[in-house]
């Protein structure tokens, strides 16, 4: 359900976040989310909260993918995801943050790429 009412311009997305512009959780563009232990949605969930939870049931989507699929700015998506993490509806696949590109991972990645050359 994209939010693209031109008359509302940039205002509506931040209504969704109740004016909050900073997420409470450190979320990178590639942080991926999966369903949490608990089911409850945040207090007074918006349609966008529900849509985010639904998407994450299908697969572990990244912040950037969720933002693109809902047609919401990244910053707004991060705030809404923060609500869902707080309520337990979603959790980070890698709670320690996105993977650092360590040497052993880059070697793996090279293997994967070599296979496709």
């Amino acid at each position, binding site marked *: 359900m994209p939010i693209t009412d031109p008359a509302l311009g940039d205002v509506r*997305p931040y209504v969704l976040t109740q004016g909050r512009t900073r997420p409470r959780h450190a979320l990178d563009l590639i942080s991926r989310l999966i369903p949490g232990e608990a089911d409850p949605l945040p207090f007074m969930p918006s349609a966008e909260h529900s849509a985010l939870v639904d998407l994450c049931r299908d697969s572990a989507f990244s912040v950037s993918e969720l933002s693109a699929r809902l047609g919401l700015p990244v910053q707004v998506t991060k705030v809404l995801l923060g609500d869902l993490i707080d309520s337990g509806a979603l959790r980070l696949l890698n709670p320690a943050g996105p993977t650092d590109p360590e040497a052993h991972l880059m070697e793996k990645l090279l293997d994967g790429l070599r296979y496709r050359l």
Partner: protein
Amino acid sequence: MACATDSDTAPTDPGPIPRYELKVVVTGGFGAGKTTTIASVSEIDILTTEAGLTTAGAGVDDLNGLSNKTTTTVAMDFGRITFPEQDIILYLFGTPGQERFQFMWDELGRGAVGAVVLADTRRLRDSFVAINWCEHLRLPFVVAVNRFDDALPYEPDEIRQALDLDAHVPLMVFDARERSSAWKVLYALVEHSLQQHSIRQHSHPSASGATG
């Protein structure tokens, strides 16, 4: 702008979720072929996300006639590749090329494997901003010259010289529309990043961030 939610259509079995997530930045001047490059290797249709930025008005185009602050929306294209055997999912982000958005790129660059700087020989100057940014973040990068026509008007060495590239930075000529060509560029980048990584480990284990 594609922002379809296709939750109704059953996706093909995505398999187990890869454990590791990595990212690569594809950057360069306007029209250098960032989106084309990503589309050549991405397993999903290119997605676009919008990063809304609130910036001080000075020096920034005023969009709505607001006095002091302007919300600027920067669109970022991206794609992804899953490597099931390696347990890795790789995201490729095309950065907006304008200099004034550099502070936003920093989040993108942090933790990235590296960057592909696309160069268009007709507008080489546009690549400087991207190269400076990589150097500022100490992000390993390769320069990929997108061959728009069959003939390249310059020798790779001439381009290297014009860009004032260090000898260790790989420079290659490729065709962004060709999948195999784009794969080679990615491969060269990861190989280069790995080399840079081991050089840094050996020479300066506690490298601190760039100053100023």
